[in-house]
């Protein structure tokens, strides 16, 4: 009896834990682990953390070298997202290391990494794993002698102002960020071949990355708008990562700047409150029928439909767009058709199966900037005509039918005449 009670209590205590967990049905992160170098950050960056908690996130602050931290227990992840505000940590405590963070991301969880001018190799390595290369010079900072913050008083122009945002409403929200973002930290570069990583905030063309304390002896390796200040990564499994070279960017110091709005909006994106699509009810059937066949015949008319929804942070809203396309694909698309939408998330298209048989796929490859990628494919074979599905009598062949039958009749008469005459 006591055991049963124990189970019950355990079960009841676990239920809320599960109900807030990340799931495909409810993709917004809930449990966030924040690793900090020291707990002072908790107060110095309280505005940012406040905006997160006000949106319903459960933040758990831990020191980065706390020996008891761990991302998972008994094979289950304890958190939905990880925030690394610990630029100077040389070794994580507990069971966390670069590999475990990478696994955390690869299993679909989100990550925010903030480095600083004294960023450790560990943080740089995490960033590299995600496709972001910080300036290799450990003392380098982004300097801009033109677009610097006027409030900056030490004169080396390392607190720079930038408003070179990525043009994507889904990442930065539809409301325009008026004030520039103030940034003080190290810049990073992205591999242009890397299609997963996006430059959200880049430095102006007059910026460069160098050590502000020493004299510039040779040309800086990172210059101009190639320097990325804030980047996001959307991995192939739709895990989202935010990487920036400035921890102070999140702090409460920069009041009049656009920092707060920028960071709030982008963390909404990172934590899947925006731009998360799902496709359900993929259906296809012949025109005029409703059952899904196991096989189509060439030249059948068919109808394909899919419903696409976007997560708004609290509920699934219909996703409306006019550029969703379906392919009828066998090694190359035979049919490429834009789906028409009814504005309620239902997309459909009618088309004719091509005059080619084989194993086709209905493919929807919807990859739009900032949205999670939708990649649907459904295999369907297409068969040729059956032997009795061809026309029985061809009008063009009537002369041949006539000649055959007249030949037969003629031969019959000839035989009779030949045998019985005389």
């Amino acid at each position, binding site marked *: 009896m006591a055991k049963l009670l124990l189970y019950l209590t355990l079960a009841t205590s676990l239920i809320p834990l599960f109900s807030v967990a990340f799931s495909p049905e409810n993709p917004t992160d809930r449990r966030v682990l924040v690793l900090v170098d020291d707990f002072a950050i908790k107060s110095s960056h309280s505005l940012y953390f406040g905006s997160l908690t006000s949106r319903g996130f459960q933040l758990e602050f831990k020191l980065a070298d706390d020996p008891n931290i761990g991302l998972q227990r008994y094979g289950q992840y304890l958190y939905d997202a990880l925030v690394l505000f610990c630029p100077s940590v040389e070794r994580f405590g507990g069971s966390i290391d670069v590999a475990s963070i990478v696994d955390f991301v690869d299993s679909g969880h989100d990550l925010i990494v903030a480095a600083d001018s004294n960023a450790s190799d560990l943080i740089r390595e995490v960033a590299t794993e995600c496709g972001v290369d910080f300036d290799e010079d450990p003392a380098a900072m982004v300097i801009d002698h033109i677009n610097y913050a006027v409030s900056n008083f030490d004169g080396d122009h390392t607190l720079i102002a930038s408003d070179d945002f990525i043009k994507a409403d889904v990442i930065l929200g539809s409301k325009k960020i008026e004030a520039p973002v103030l940034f003080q930290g190290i810049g990073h570069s992205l591999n242009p071949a890397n299609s997963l990583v996006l430059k959200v905030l880049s430095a102006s063309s007059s910026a460069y990355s160098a050590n502000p304390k020493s004299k510039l002896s040779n040309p800086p390796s990172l210059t101009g708008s190639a320097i990325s200040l804030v980047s996001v990564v959307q991995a192939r499994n739709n895990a989202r990562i935010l990487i920036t070279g400035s921890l102070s960017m999140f702090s409460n110091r920069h009041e009049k700047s656009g920092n707060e709005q920028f960071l709030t909006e982008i963390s909404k994106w990172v934590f899947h409150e925006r731009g998360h699509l799902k496709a359900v009810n993929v259906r296809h059937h012949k025109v005029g029928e409703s059952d899904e066949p196991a096989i189509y015949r060439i030249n059948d008319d068919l109808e394909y439909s899919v419903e696409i929804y976007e997560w708004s942070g609290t509920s699934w809203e219909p996703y409306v767009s006019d550029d969703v396309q379906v392919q009828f694909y*066998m090694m190359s698309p035979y049919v490429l058709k834009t789906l028409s939408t009814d504005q309620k998330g239902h997309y459909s298209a009618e088309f004719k199966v091509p005059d080619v048989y084989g194993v086709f796929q209905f493919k929807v490859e919807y990859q739009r900037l900032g949205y999670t990628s939708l990649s649907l494919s459904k295999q369907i074979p297409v068969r040729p005509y059956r032997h009795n599905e061809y026309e029985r009598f061809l009008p063009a062949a009537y002369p041949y039918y006539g000649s055959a039958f007249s030949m037969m009749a003629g031969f019959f008469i000839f035989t009779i005449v030949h045998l019985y005459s005389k």
Partner: protein
Amino acid sequence: MAAAAKAGEATLRHAFGNVLSFFILLLIGVLAFSIRLFSVIKYESVIHEFDPYFNYRVTQFLTKNGIYDFWNWFDDRTWYPLGRVIGGTVYPGLTLTAGTIWWLLNSLNIPLSVETVCVFTAPIFSAFASWATYLLTKEVKGAGAGLTAAALLAMVPSYISRSVAGSYDNEAVAIFALIITFYLYIKTLNTGSLFYATLNAIAYFYMVCSWGGYTFIINLIPMHVLLCIVTGRYSSRLYIAYAPLVVLGTLLAALVPVVGFNAVMTSEHFASFLVFIILHVVALVYYIKGILSPKMFKVAVTLVVSVGLVVCCAVIAILVALVASSPTKGWSGRSLSLLDPTYASKYIPIIASVSEHQPPTWPSYFMDINVLAFLVPAGIIACFLPLSDASSFVVLYIVTSVYFSGVMVRLMLVFAPAACIMSGIALSQAFDVFTRSIKFQLLRILGFSEADAGDGSSANVVPENDAVKVDKSEETIKERPSRKNKKKEKEQMEKAQAEKTSAKSKTEKRLLVLPMELSVIGLLLLVFMGAFYVVHCVWAAAEAYSAPSIVLTSYTHEGLHVFDDFREAYAWLRHNTEVDDKVASWWDYGYQTTAMANRTVIVDNNTWNNTHIATVGTAMSSPEKAAWEIFNSLDVKYVLVVFGGLVGYPSDDINKFLWMVRIGGGVFPHIKEPDYLRDGQYRIDSQATPTMLNCLMYKLSYYRFVETDGKGFDRVRRTEIGKKYFKLTHFEEVFTTHHWMVRIYKLKPSKNRIRGKMKKSKSRTSTPSSKRSGSRKKNPWQ
């Protein structure tokens, strides 16, 4: 009184001979069936090799879904993503035969599984084939030769190799169909009966249903007809034997979906139509000759010949122009490689790559037909004494089939029945001569009165019987001219015939006078030869040709080893992968994968799409990343390779690799064979080229191989492998069978993230630079 008694005795002897023949034939059937059961006894009742698995799968489909679904079967599990219309591309004879047998047995409440029926179809039909051989040879040279030929065919190793229990392939029924078609043709030729002509067309239809080799028939029979016409043997019986066959046969052949319009469109069939026309012209000429006076006839001939030549030239010119407008001159690749043995190796590596399409070696003749090789010339000579329509056909058959068997080892199978018929004739004629001369010698020694009494003894029945048969055949020869309606011709022919027969009887008389001792020694030698043949055949059936090739065995000093790796791997695939997963392998294993593992394959043994096979070949001979991209674009989930290096299984994928390179390079020119060759050889040891060591096939075959013995010694190539320690980046090993004969790899999904450039500089530089060096190093080895 005495005459009546003699006549009664003759009929009695005749009846006795027939009963004896019947039981001999029955025993030959039992022999033909049982000699093919070694595979079941030594291994188990399984389907063998590659193609039989496909036939088995098709038969299963047929028994489950019925004939109409079979006819319209679009198979989406092979040749992904193209699929294959099985109903329209398969010769349905075998499947329908086995399906009918199964259905018949089931409706008789004999619940055999489809597999059992399939396994035993080939032995049953080889019994039928030996009976058909009896009929055919009997038509040519009498019952004695027929029985001998049937007995020889029942156990000829060449035929056994394709028809052991479990070897469920088209040839199993096609050889029977081939012989029965020939028999019916000869029968029609000898009797002039339209009934047999119709049966002949139906038998031809069955042959067309069963095997692509039917083109042999439709070319051989016209050749024979032409030969008969040229040698002045035209008769109305020839017309009846041929004309209905062409008309009905072509109509029936066009009903088979896989043949369809090919029956009138391809060059393989043109010979029959041409001869059909010639036959009619000749018939017309003979007819006109009959009704016109000689003088008038001469005038008509000059008129017709001059006009006819012009028309003929025009028609032929048009035909040639039509045929020449197609690039292959209207011939299929396989037929072309028959006419020009070097064609395939020059232009179609996919045909050249099949081992059974290679020319045979000399020893294989002695392996496959053994002593028959020596008897065949004697048989040919016997066929010329006297030369009849039937025996000239057999001679033509053996001459053409010898040529074809020399081009393609597979066609040894067509040659074997001809060799058996010839040897049967030779043996029976030799026995005939020897026994008869012994008999005459005995008569001379013992005197006439005792000879009469000795006549009844069973030992002399066979030669007597033969003598009767010889008489009969002579009768038919004599009869023939009388059936012709032209009188002069008839007279002439009769005169010539009379001369011929008299000459023949003289030679026969001369032959008969053999000394007693010589005859006895000759008989003994013949018996020894026969015994040697039987021993060889049984050995071949038991040891050489009964291996099912999906289960392998080997004897070592430790005892018997059984390698059941193929079924192990296919069972793993069946149980551990998703139903719709695609498995890529070299095409040899396609049929087995679909039949045994029930998984979709990219290419299989029906090599209808060269490009698709070349794609797989290119992937196998590309570096890992390029291969991954090719396979990924084909939705492949698993890659299966066969590797014999651990146990010394020689027909593994590394040994087949040169064909992957050649076929792949034939379509995708960036695969160049010289890149893989060192000193003109495919090497995998330390001398191997970097391209070879980096290609997917090498990596998948030898991944972790060094862990087995620490050295990486390949027992097939008898060398240590060149690159021992390497990692796979785009593939992961998921299953390797007990003896490492089949290795299955899974394609890794594309990377979730793309790494940046910095840090971990070791791994970063190694991957791209090796690729770059690979491409850079291509040139120096050319």
